[in-house]
């Protein structure tokens, strides 16, 4: 914890006397260097797998594993990025995943923010108990009720349709929780004065809360989009037909079919990560704010 060394030089120098000042600055420069070294090392460790993914996807298959390791390919093989579309059903997988992610995000944002308003701003008997049921399920892992959920979903004739994934992802407690946290930061007087002016609860939600909560809605939409895009277990259990496969499911079947095509496998991986990476980089602020305000994940 040397943040204060750098940001508050005056009181630190004044208090222990001038004798300590030069020693301190040497020490803090040393700490700075250590900090940078640690930062670079950690960044390298965090990025290495991504570097490998991209570089291997641009190699010929026999060049992926060599001794010594080629960290920079001699020539870049763009062919992999053409071949993959012919060798796999990438188009179908990406199409299904995009459709699911968009529909789920829309539903989650609409129903989640709607319910959150009810929890945050309307007082009625049983509200807190109901909210407790929502929050309580966060301590219950999905893996522990996936079996009865599957039974129910089959009874509703939803399994092996894309609807199963929509149903699975769109009504989670996460969206309600995130939006409720946000609504509670909006001053009560705002909705109170609107109520006095004769606006209905729905009117307050539409005209006041929704416009004010745009950043939170963006956080929720982006986080839901990415969660749905990355989901592997849901599709694994519910989507049996090949034409329903999502990108994660498709990618994994591709690996088992072509397990020696190291370069092509990496090409597929890059393509599966790319949309999420772009969305993350564009909307980074919303991701981080969403995570920081709830400290929860889907």
């Amino acid at each position, binding site marked *: *914890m040397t*943040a204060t060394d*750098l*940001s508050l030089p005056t*009181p630190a120098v004044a208090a222990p006397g001038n004798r300590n000042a030069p020693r301190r600055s040497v020490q803090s420069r040393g700490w700075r260097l250590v*900090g940078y070294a640690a*930062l670079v090392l*950690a*960044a390298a460790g*965090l990025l*290495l*797998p*991504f570097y*490998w*993914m991209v570089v*291997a996807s641009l190699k010929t298959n026999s060049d992926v594993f*060599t*001794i010594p390791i080629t960290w920079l390919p001699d020539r870049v093989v763009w062919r992999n990025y053409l071949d993959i579309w012919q060798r796999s059903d990438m188009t179908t997988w990406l199409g299904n995943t995009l459709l699911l992610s968009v529909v789920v995000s829309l539903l989650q944002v609409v129903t*989640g923010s*709607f319910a959150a308003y*009810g*929890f945050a701003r309307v*007082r*009625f008997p049983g509200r807190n108990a*109901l909210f407790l*049921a*929502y929050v309580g*399920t966060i*301590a219950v*892992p999905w*893996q*522990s*009720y*996936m*079996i*009865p959920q*599957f039974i*129910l979903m089959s009874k509703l004739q939803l399994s092996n349709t894309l609807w199963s994934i929509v149903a*699975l992802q769109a*009504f989670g*407690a996460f*969206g309600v929780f995130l939006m409720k946290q946000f609504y509670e930061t909006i001053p009560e007087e705002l909705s109170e004065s609107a109520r*006095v002016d004769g606006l209905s*609860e729905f009117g307050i939600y539409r005209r006041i809360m929704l416009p004010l909560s745009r950043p939170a809605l963006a956080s929720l939409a982006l986080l839901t989009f990415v969660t749905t*895009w990355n989901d592997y*277990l849901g599709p694994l*259990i519910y989507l049996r037909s090949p034409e329903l496969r999502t990108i*994660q499911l498709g*990618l*994994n079947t591709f690996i088992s079919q072509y397990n020696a095509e190291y370069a092509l*496998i990496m090409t597929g*991986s890059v393509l599966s990560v790319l949309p999420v*990476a772009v969305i993350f980089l564009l909307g*980074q602020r919303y*991701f*981080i704010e969403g*995570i*920081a305000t709830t*400290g929860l*994940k889907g």
Partner: protein
Amino acid sequence: MATLPRTRPRNRRLVSRNTVAGWSFILPNFVGFAVLTLLPVVVLFYVAFTNWNVFGVAEWTGTANFRRMWSDASFWTALRNTVYYTVFHIPLTLGASLGLALLLNRKLRGVRFFRTVAFFPYITSIVAIAIVWNQLFSPEYGPINALLGAVGVDNAPGWTTSSTWSMPAVIIVGTWRYMGYYMLLFLAGLQTIPAQLYEAAETDGASPWQRFVHVTLPGLRHTTFFVTVLLTIESFKVFDLILVMTGGGPGQSTLVLSQYIYQKGFEENQFGYASAVSIVLFAICFSITVIQFMVNKRRNS
């Protein structure tokens, strides 16, 4: 409320109007939530006491599933492996994410870039991550063993091909993936510690280590508690990472509870027995959360 009603009939009318309004807001989400989350959790406790199979024929079998579980060696292996993963994953991730957060909380250049980088593994899909790490861990040609060889490790581990090293490999990847996420929670926690506390500690002549122990750690108590709860649940339900990386192998060396539920339920169609195993997972996560909440409450008072 500011517009507190003055008369009783108006009060009652307001309550019923609010109830209608409240429920109509909550209902669209609640229908889905009740049918797909609450109901399954309740049904779980019924199915676990039956011999439900793929044909949907279910007989009440009492505690038969649990008695079978008691003498099921694979179940105990799965439980032991889950605990193995948890015991290492929690402290490693706590340490790594807190370390990163402390590092990023300093005014260094490139911190913003680094925050992006640290978060990247978390938003990348498990499938892609598992595939890449499997290549990195490749025992003979992979870069990890090449690096180990370069620093003088002679017999580098076989990682996912060895039943001793497959779990450590999974733990490494799990920690790598989640540390950026928890770092973010710690960063948010660090921002709530008042700067005056550090100034005061410094004027008292506290060393950086003393400041960390006596200012930072107490200030982060709530965050640490919350992160530990999330980490515990996350560790006990670990599944997709292992499924794609090792498939539970070699042998049963990385078989975990969630995967055992999946195997029994969706591969062998023994929904009843799988539900009984699910109850164990449910009970573990639930009781750990409750215990942690109680401990935290007592420590606070």
